[in-house]
């Protein structure tokens, strides 16, 4: 088991979660969203599950680790090596190149990271807003924009999902409507 944190803000925001959870497995950090881009993923959590030969036993799609059914499948596979039928039958995601909007969103995310490193947060957020405009359904970018702009809704106590819902509505009716 290897965990991969999709966090543009880097290790500093990841480590507290690992300490709190007391993890014993290795965690890597994908600060530049390399995997999100490579696999065309726009949300987490997602699992990449491979056999001893390095081949996928399940398409790269979302998972719910809290789902009892998925946990049972995972445990059965880890124990016996038998690939669950539900995994084999899962349809592979569409094969396609990044669209123009997706490419622009990624480039603006990378530029925002440079600006964040320079502590030019206001300009970074403007780039992230443009990225979200280019690819509004990319939640890897959109929610990280929120986390940078309003850290209290994410890092002070439980994640504030009511705030997220309201923020989404504000944006959908605001700068994303234009």
């Amino acid at each position, binding site marked *: 088991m290897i965990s991969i*944190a999709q*966090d543009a803000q880097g*290790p500093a925001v990841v480590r507290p979660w690992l300490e709190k959870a007391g993890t014993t497995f290795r965690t890597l950090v*994908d600060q530049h969203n390399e995997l999100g881009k490579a696999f065309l993923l726009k949300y987490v959590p997602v699992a990449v599950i491979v056999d001893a030969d390095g081949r996928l036993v399940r398409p790269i799609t979302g998972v719910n680790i809290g789902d009892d059914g998925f946990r049972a499948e995972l445990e059965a596979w880890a124990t016996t090596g038998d690939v669950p039928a539900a995994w084999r039958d899962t349809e592979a*995601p569409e094969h396609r190149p990044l669209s123009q909007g997706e490419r622009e969103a990624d480039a603006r995310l990378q530029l925002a990271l440079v600006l964040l490193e320079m502590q030019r947060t206001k300009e970074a957020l403007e780039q992230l807003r443009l990225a979200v405009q280019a690819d509004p359904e990319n939640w*890897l970018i959109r929610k990280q924009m929120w986390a940078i702009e309003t850290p209290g809704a994410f890092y002070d106590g439980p994640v504030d999902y009511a705030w997220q819902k309201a923020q989404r509505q504000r944006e959908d009716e605001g700068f994303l409507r234009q």
Partner: protein
Amino acid sequence: MRIFGIRNPTDAQSWSDFMVPLKFELEGVRTALQPAAQQQEGDVWVPLEAFCAATDVVLKDIDGAGQLAVCDDSGGDVCILLGADDTRDVQGTTYGRLSAFDAPLGFIWTVRDDGALSVIRRSTSVHTGLGVGDRPPKIELPDVLTGQLVSADVYYSKPAVYYMWASW
């Protein structure tokens, strides 16, 4: 091939007096660019041959008579013609105005406070549509605790689960 925009040529003018050399960073990595890119007031000028080689686009003499174009032959098959006011020859090097061809070829850039030109290019490297039995591409990312770059290949000799999550 799609060819876009030729600008009206203007007389070349003396411009070297106010140029500021810039360090160069490509995709977040400090990269050698020789000679250096230059900033003059609001414009950034790049040595065309070296810049194109570094960023995987192609500089072409499109008509064989000196009409330069910056082309992306890999994905879009797009060429951007450079007008006389978009190029300058200085001491044997042809510089191009970055803003003349940046957006159509997917370049996004900024000049940082430390005098570095930071350039990002929209990526086209994707591995979508992978299904059961396919091998995922190499995963190489830093360890969150040590910063050490770790290749996930080392885990490919045994069954493994890579779980992608986030703090937000």
